[in-house]
C-alpha cells in the first residue's frame, strides 16, 4: 500500500513535470567561459542578450586561466561522459585532440560557417564534422609604449635585435630616472602552453621551422631554431626580469599595464584592457607585428577560441542556438569593439566601427590571416606531450640550465620517443 502511494505520487509529479515542460520550453544551458582578462564580462554580456531573446537561462562556468589546465579539466569531464556542461570554449589546437566529444554543428549553422575564415573552419572540421564554431582568433603581437619610444627618439623595432637594443635604452633611462623596477620586455615564460606559443614565434621568425613539420618530421634541431632560442635566452636578466620564467599572459599584462615595461608580447585582448579607464598607460600603447630574426619574417602564433556543443549535452538544440548567436556577425562585432577580440569573420576587418576601436586590426590583418599554427593537427593526441617537452626544453635554456644546442638535440631525441612508430599510433 505504501509502495503504491509512492508510485502514484511519482507518476503525478512526472505528469506535472511534463505539463510544465510543455507549457514553457525554457531550458537551462551551461557554458564554459574563459577567465583571462575581460573573458568573463564579455561572455556574460553576450549570453544575457541571448537569454532575453529566447527566454532560456544560461549558467556560466568559469575555467582556469592556463590553457594547459583547461584541457586537462575538459578531458576528465568528457572522458567520464559528463553532461553537466553543454557548451565548451575550445582552444584552436584542441579540435584534433578532443573533437570526437562534440556534435556536428552543420545542421544548426545553416551555412553560417562560410562567413568565417576558411582556415579556422578547416581546423575545426574533424572527419567532415564541424566540431566547433570559430569565436575569436588570436595571433601574438608586440605591444609597445609609444610615449617612451618618442621620449628616447626611437622607432618601433622590426627585428628582435633592434627590439632588445631599444628595450635596453629605455630600461636604462627609466631606471636612471628613478624607476628601479622598470623592465624592457615582458612575455610568457612560464613552463606551459603559452611558452610554446612564444617560442614557436621565435623559431618561425628566424626561419627555424615549426617543431614538427606537416609531414610529421621532427625539425626542431636546426641552427636557426637554436639561434632564435639563444637570442631569447639573452634577454633574461638583461631586458626581461628573471620572474618572466613564471609569467603567464596576465602576469605580463600586469607589469606592462602598470607602466613598468617598454615592450610586451601578448594576444590582442590586451589592447582594450590596456586602454581601459583603470589603465595607467591608456592611449600610450602601440601595436605591431612581432619582430623578425635575421633573414626571417614577421610572424605570430595562431591562437583563438571556438565554441562547441558536447555530445553528452541534454539540450543540444538550445546550446547550438547559443553558439550560433555568440559567433554571429553582430556579436563578434560587439566583442571586437568592446573587448578587442579579433573577429573570425573577414568582413568585420573592413567594418569602420571595428577599425576605429582597434586600428591595428586593419593594419595587421596579414598577421592574423598568416599566423603560424602549432603542430597539433599533425601530432594529434600526442600534441600535449610534444608541447610539454618543447616548453620544458626552452624553459631550460631561458633559465640558463642548458644551452640551445644541447637542449634542442635532447628535445629531438625525446620527441622521437614520443612519436614512436607514428604520431597517430
Amino acid at each position, binding site marked *: 500500500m505504501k509502495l503504491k502511494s509512492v508510485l502514484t505520487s511519482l507518476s503525478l509529479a512526472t505528469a506535472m513535470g511534463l505539463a510544465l515542460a510543455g507549457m514553457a520550453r525554457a531550458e537551462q544551458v551551461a557554458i564554459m567561459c574563459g577567465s583571462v582578462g575581460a573573458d568573463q564580462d564579455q561572455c556574460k554580456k553576450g549570453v544575457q542578450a541571448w537569454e532575453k531573446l529566447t527566454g532560456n537561462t544560461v549558467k556560466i562556468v568559469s575555467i582556469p586561466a592556463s590553457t594547459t589546465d583547461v584541457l586537462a579539466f575538459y578531458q576528465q569531464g568528457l572522458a567520464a561522459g559528463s553532461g553537466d556542461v553543454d557548451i565548451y570554449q575550445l582552444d584552436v589546437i584542441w579540435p584534433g585532440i578532443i573533437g570526437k566529444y562534440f556534435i556536428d554543428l552543420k545542421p544548426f549553422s545553416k551555412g553560417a560557417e562560410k562567413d568565417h575564415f576558411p582556415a579556422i573552419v578547416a581546423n575545426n572540421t574533424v572527419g567532415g564534422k564541424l566540431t566547433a564554431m570559430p569565436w575569436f582568433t588570436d595571433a601574438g603581437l608586440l605591444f609597445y609604449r609609444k610615449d617612451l619610444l618618442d621620449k628616447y627618439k626611437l622607432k618601433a623595432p622590426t627585428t628582435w635585435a633592434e627590439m632588445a637594443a631599444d628595450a635596453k635604452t629605455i630600461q636604462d633611462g627609466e631606471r636612471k630616472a628613478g624607476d628601479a623596477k622598470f623592465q624592457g620586455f615582458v612575455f610568457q615564460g612560464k*613552463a606551459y602552453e603559452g611558452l610554446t606559443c612564444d617560442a614557436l614565434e621565435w623559431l618561425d621568425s628566424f626561419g627555424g621551422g615549426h617543431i614538427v613539420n606537416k609531414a610529421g618530421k621532427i625539425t626542431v634541431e636546426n641552427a636557426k631554431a637554436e639561434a632564435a632560442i639563444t637570442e631569447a635566452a639573452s634577454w633574461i636578466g638583461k631586458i626581461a626580469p628573471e620572474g618572466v620564467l613564471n609569467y603567464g599572459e596576465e602576469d605580463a599584462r600586469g607589469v606592462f599595464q602598470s607602466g613598468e615595461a617598454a615592450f610586451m608580447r601578448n594576444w590582442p585582448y590586451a589592447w582594450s584592457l590596456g586602454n581601459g579607464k583603470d589603465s595607467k598607460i591608456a592611449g600610450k600603447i602601440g601595436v605591431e607585428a612581432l619582430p623578425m630574426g635575421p633573414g626571417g619574417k614577421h610572424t605570430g602564433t595562431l591562437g583563438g577560441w571556438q565554441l562547441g556543443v558536447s555530445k553528452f549535452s541534454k539540450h543540444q538544440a538550445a546550446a547550438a542556438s547559443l553558439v550560433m548567436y555568440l559567433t554571429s556577425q553582430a556579436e563578434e562585432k560587439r566583442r571586437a569593439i568592446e573587448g578587442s577580440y579579433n573577429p573570425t569573420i573577414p568582413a568585420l576587418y573592413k567594418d569602420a566601427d571595428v577599425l576605429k576601436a582597434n586600428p591595428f586590426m586593419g593594419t595587421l590583418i596579414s598577421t592574423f590571416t598568416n599566423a603560424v599554427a602549432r603542430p597539433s593537427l599533425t601530432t594529434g593526441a600526442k600534441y600535449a606531450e610534444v608541447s610539454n617537452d618543447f616548453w620544458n626544453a626552452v624553459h631550460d635554456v631561458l633559465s640558463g640550465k642548458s644551452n640551445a644546442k644541447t637542449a634542442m638535440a635532447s628535445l629531438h631525441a625525446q620527441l622521437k620517443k614520443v612519436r614512436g612508430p607514428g604520431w597517430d599510433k
Partner: protein
Amino acid sequence: MAAAQSELTRARARSAWLFLAPMLVVLALTAAWPLARTIFFSFTDDKLGDASYHFVGFDNYFVQGDGYTDGILADPLWLSAVWHTVWFAVVSVALETALGLVVALVLNSDFRGRALVRTAILVPWAIPTVVSSKMWAWMLNDQLGIVNDMLQRAHLISGPVAWTANPSVSMISVIFVDVWKTTPFMALMILAALQLLPTDCYEAGRIDGVSPVKMFFKVTLPLIWPALIVAIVFRALDALRVFDLIYLLTSGSNDTISMSVYAQQQLVQFQKVGVGSAASTLLFIVLAIFTAGTLLLTRSKNAEA
C-alpha cells in the same frame, strides 16, 4: 584450555566481526578497490577517452630492448621527481618539527592571552592550500610582490628576486610556504602531548637541581616521543604526496616536479592512464615502504623501552 573456546567467546568474535563489517565494506570500496584498479591499469597501455586497452606487463615500469630502455624507472624526469619530493619532505618536515616543538613549548607555558594566541597560530593551517598558494604566489611575485618590496626596503637584497621562477630558489620558496602552513599542525600535535605529561617527574627533577635544557632532553622529549613520531609520520606522508603547492606556486617546469605532479602529468595531461597509474603505484610503494619502515623502527624502540 585455549583450544576449546567457550560459546560466549565465539559469540563475541561473531558480533565483533558484525560490527566491523560496515567499516570493512566502506574501506574496501573507497580504498582497496581504487588501489587495486590503479595497480591493474599500471600493467596496461590504457588511454583516457579510449575504451580499449592491452596488457603490457611491466613495460610501463621498465623495459629494455636492443639499444634502448624505456618506462618510468628509466625516465630521468621520474628520478629527479623522486629526488625533489624526498628533498622537499625531509627538509620541510624537519623544519616543521623543530619549529612546531618551539611553538608548542611556548604555548604550553602559562601567560595571559594564551587561548587567543593558540587560536591565532592555527590560521595558516585552516586556510585551504589552494588559497594560501595563490596568496603567496602574489606576495612572492618578482615585480609586484610585497616580499621583494620589504626585503629591498630593508636593504637585504639589492634587486628583486624571482622567488617562484628562478629554479635555484623556487624549491626554497615551496618549502618556506609549506613550513609556514604546516608548523601550526605540528605545534598542535606536540602541544596535546605536552599537556598530558605528568608533573611529578618535573618536581623530582627540580628538587635534584636538573638544568632546564637537560630536563627537556631527558624528561620531556622521551615522554612526548611516541606522539612526535605519529605527527612526523603524518606529515611525511603528506609531504611525499605534495602536489597543489608545487603546481600552483612554481612555473611548472621540470626543476620542481614532484612524484604526484609527474603522475598527474602522465595521467591527466598526456592521457596515459597506464603510465600514470604506474607512477601512482610507484608513489604508493614509496609511501608503503616509508610507513612500514617507520613503524618497525618505532616498534623496536618501544620494545627497548
